[in-house]
Each structure stands twice: as structure tokens, then as C-alpha cells.
């Protein structure tokens, strides 16, 4: 007879019904889980088997829909749920129709540029055609590269778009990398086309590429170290724990230095360069810094490895975007009025970036909680199926916690 982990299944139902914000959601799920485990332990102590004990605990707690309703919804929770539904719909479209998904994402990416184009044109009567052309080419590259990438994930078997993309990045890294960096390549290319000092800029580009791909060097070093002890090189390349931290900070510092150098030329596409550089910082440096600082034991207990403080985390993401242009503007020796104007613009953009990332991180973390809870139920179901099947009864039981 098939048995289910009643507590995990109950938590999935409760999670679906909750309309509260992320932090409160995690707390509620953790508290209810501990309560149910206590109640099941108490019932087990009376002689019931575990499955019956869990069933009794869950029944005594009440219907998950009703319990979820008792936790009053808040505005943040409702907004988060709406955004999560929207992103889920986008994922669903992408899984079924890769090119439509890629087109939607490209359109979403182009939208802020279109707004900037209109606002700039209306306010100053100067329509930034160059900006729009660059953005359109970048969106086109993004569409083509991601169309191929999404087409490649369509027939995979992993659950959900994220899992399929992760698997693709392992199995076809070139395609994955090309799609992820397509926009950056367009922006860098746009700069190089207009550059009057091509040689020097190509050198800088080479340095940046080396830094971006330094993880490959590190991976190579790890592989080499296993057969040839070379601790000094391991430390230097960040393959030990202490060296790893140092490596990340050095790389972040080099990024900043490289970007500041590039931004020095304010007459030649500085904003484009800063956009590309800021994006690179966000995608390559931010997550590495965040993964150490923001993951908490609470998240780990819930089986998530994501962030407990999304807005704090987003500020770490957004900080380089905020700070680098200001440093660069001052470094370029621009007039004070321009620096102030530029600083205000940067502040506005930085705030938007921070809030935007904060919202996205919340949604990502929410989705991770959902998928982890559901994975626990699936794992438990698989285990109980295996246990009831004598031919597979010797299979080891996977850890339910943190799966």
C-alpha cells in the first residue's frame, strides 16, 4: 500500500493557500511543520505507526485552505503572488513555444529602453536614436540566442524551466553561455565599432573576458590539484576555502578597476559601457558575494538555499550599479552640474534596479520554496513506492530535509 509523507503534502497545500509575504510565509511553514512533527511524535508514542500518526496530526491541525485563510493576507504577499503567477505563465509559454517565450522576454527587455527613448525625446526634443538602435540590436540578439536555447530545453525531462536551463548549462555550456551573454556582446561590439582606440579597448576587453571566465581556470586548477598537489597555486586561483574568498574579492576589485578605466572616456559611449559593465557586475560578481552573506540556516532547514533578506541582498546587487558611474563621472573630471545631474540619474536608476531585483529575488525565493516542498513530497512518494516494491526495497532513502 502506498504511503505518503502527510506533513510534507500538507505543507505544500498550505503554501499554495497562503497569501502572505515571503518572510512570513517561511516562518509560518517552519512553525507549522515543527508543530505537526511534534504532534506526530506524540501520536507515535501512543503506538500508532508513523503514517497514521502524521495523518492524525494533520487532521487535528485543520484544512490547509482554512488555516491559510486565517493568516491575514498583506499587500506585499498579494503582489508577490501575482508576479509569481505572471512569471509562471511566462515559463509555461516558453516551455511550450520557445520562440514566443524568447520574443516576450526580448520585448520585456526592450520596454525600459522604449520608455527612456520617449521620455528623453519629449523632455529635450532630442530623440536618442543611437540608444534605441543599440537596444533593438541587443534585443534581437537576445531573441535569437534565447530562441535556440529554449528550443533546446523544450524536450528535456527536468521539471520546470529553471531546472532544464541548469541542466543545459552543464551539458551544452557554449549554447548556454552564448545566450546569456548575447546582450553584453552586442553592447561591447557597439562600443568597439565607435572606438577610436581599438587596440587599447580590445586589450581591456581581453582582460574582462579573462576575468569573466576565470571560473574555468579555477575549475581546471581543481582538476589538476587532485592529481598533482600544488597548494600554492590552489590558493592563488581560489581553490581553497580562504583563497576562494580572496579570489572573489580580487576579481570584483579588478572588475571595478577595469570598468572605471573604460568609463574614463565620457565622450565615447560611456553610458553604454557603464550599462554593460554594471550588468556584468550584477550577473558575475553579485551572486558570488550574496551566496555567502545572505543564505541562512532558516532557508536551509526549509530546503532552500536562497535569500532571507531579498531587499538587503538586492542592495548588494545594485550597489555597484549605483557607485561605479558616480566614481567614473567624478574620475572623468566632468563639470559639477553634470556630475550632480548624472548622480541624480544614477540614484534613480540604482533605486529602480534595487527595487526590481528585490522583487525578483522575492519571487525566485518563493518559487524555490514551492519547488522544494513539492520535491520533498515527490521524493517521499518515490521512497514509499520503492519500499512497497520488494525488487527495489534495498534502495537507500534520500534525505527529505533540504532536498
Amino acid at each position, binding site marked *: 500500500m502506498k504511503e505518503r509523507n502527510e506533513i510534507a503534502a500538507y505543507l505544500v497545500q498550505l503554501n499554495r493557500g497562503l497569501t502572505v509575504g515571503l518572510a*512570513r510565509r517561511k516562518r509560518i511553514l517552519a512553525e507549522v511543520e*515543527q508543530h505537526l512533527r511534534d504532534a506526530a511524535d506524540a501520536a507515535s508514542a501512543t503506538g500508532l505507526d508513523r503514517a497514521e500518526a502524521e495523518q492524525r496530526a494533520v487532521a487535528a491541525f*485543520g484544512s490547509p485552505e482554512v488555516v491559510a485563510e486565517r493568516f491575514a493576507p498583506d499587500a506585499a504577499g498579494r503582489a508577490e503572488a501575482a508576479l509569481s503567477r505572471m512569471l509562471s505563465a511566462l515559463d509555461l509559454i516558453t516551455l511550450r513555444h520557445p520562440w514566443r517565450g524568447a520574443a516576450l522576454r526580448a520585448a520585456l527587455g526592450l520596454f525600459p529602453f522604449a520608455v527612456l527613448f520617449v521620455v528623453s525625446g519629449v523632455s529635450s526634443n532630442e530623440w536618442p536614436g543611437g540608444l534605441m538602435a543599440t537596444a533593438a540590436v541587443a534585443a534581437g540578439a537576445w531573441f535569437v540566442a534565447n530562441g535556440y536555447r529554449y528550443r533546446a530545453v523544450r524536450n528535456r525531462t527536468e521539471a520546470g524551466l529553471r531546472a532544464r536551463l541548469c541542466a543545459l548549462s552543464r551539458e551544452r555550456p557554449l549554447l548556454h553561455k552564448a545566450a546569456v551573454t548575447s546582450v553584453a556582446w552586442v553592447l561591447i561590439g557597439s562600443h568597439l565599432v565607435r572606438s577610436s582606440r581599438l587596440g587599447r579597448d580590445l586589450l581591456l576587453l581581453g582582460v574582462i573576458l579573462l576575468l569573466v571566465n576565470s571560473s574555468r581556470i579555477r575549475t581546471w586548477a581543481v582538476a589538476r590539484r587532485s592529481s598533482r598537489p600544488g597548494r600554492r597555486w590552489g590558493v592563488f586561483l581560489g581553490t581553497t576555502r580562504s583563497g576562494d574568498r580572496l579570489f572573489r574579492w580580487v576579481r570584483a576589485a579588478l572588475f571595478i578597476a577595469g570598468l572605471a578605466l573604460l568609463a574614463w572616456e565620457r565622450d565615447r559611449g560611456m553610458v553604454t559601457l557603464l550599462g554593460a559593465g554594471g550588468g556584468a557586475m550584477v550577473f558575475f560578481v553579485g551572486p558570488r558575494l550574496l551566496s555567502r552573506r545572505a543564505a541562512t540556516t532558516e532557508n536551509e532547514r526549509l530546503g532552500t538555499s536562497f535569500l532571507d533578506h531579498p531587499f538587503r541582498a538586492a542592495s548588494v546587487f545594485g550597489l555597484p550599479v549605483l557607485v561605479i558611474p558616480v566614481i567614473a563621472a567624478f574620475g572623468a573630471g566632468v563639470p559639477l552640474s553634470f556630475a550632480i545631474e548624472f548622480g541624480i540619474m544614477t540614484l534613480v536608476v540604482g533605486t529602480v534596479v534595487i527595487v526590481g531585483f528585490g522583487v525578483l529575488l522575492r519571487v525566485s525565493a518563493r518559487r524555490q520554496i514551492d519547488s522544494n516542498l513539492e520535491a520533498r513530497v515527490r521524493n517521499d512518494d518515490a521512497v514509499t513506492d520503492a519500499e512497497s516494491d520488494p525488487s527495489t526495497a534495498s534502495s537507500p532513502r534520500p534525505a527529505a530535509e533540504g532536498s
Partner: protein
Amino acid sequence: MRGEVLKGHLDLLLLSALVPGPAHGYSIIARIKTRSAGAFELAEGTVYPALHRLEQAGLLESEWSDDAARRRRIYRLTRKGRKAVAERKSEWSEFVDAMSLALGKAT
């Protein structure tokens, strides 16, 4: 005892259960059951929303505790909560006295 009878008094029961000392949700329910000699068996799914509400009102505070083998959220009364317990107990006594009189049980 019927759930609807307890419904209006849930907050006072929860606050009173924390007067002896901090406790987590499961033990609060157990405390109430023990102190009422088994008469008050709270609907478990109502307790946590109520605890959260009382915390938002500033009557309780809570924190995670890793002391035991299992991680639990421990609730304790705030100063405002202790004052609220005293006031509500007093109101309750007045209510009971009045009800007793009205029902003809007094003296």
C-alpha cells in the same frame, strides 16, 4: 468544550498560558489543555494565526530557538502583553461575577 465557546477567549487563553514562561506553539496548546484539566482543547490551526496577530499587536515577541533537537519559535509576553493579561483577567472576573449573578448562582 465547543470551539465557538472558546473562540472569543482565545487571546486571553494564549496570553495566560505564557505567564509562567516562554513556550512554543505546541507546548502552549498542551499547557492550556493541562491547566484546564483537558476541558480546553484548542483547534490547533487557529493558534498560530492568533499568536502571529498578538505578536503584531505587540503583546508577544518571539524568536527561533535551536536549543532543543528541533528548531522552534519561542513566544514570550512583552511588558505590554503582561499588562494586557492583567487587564483582561480583571475584565473576565467582572464578567464571570456578573454572569453568575444573572444566572442566579451567586450566594
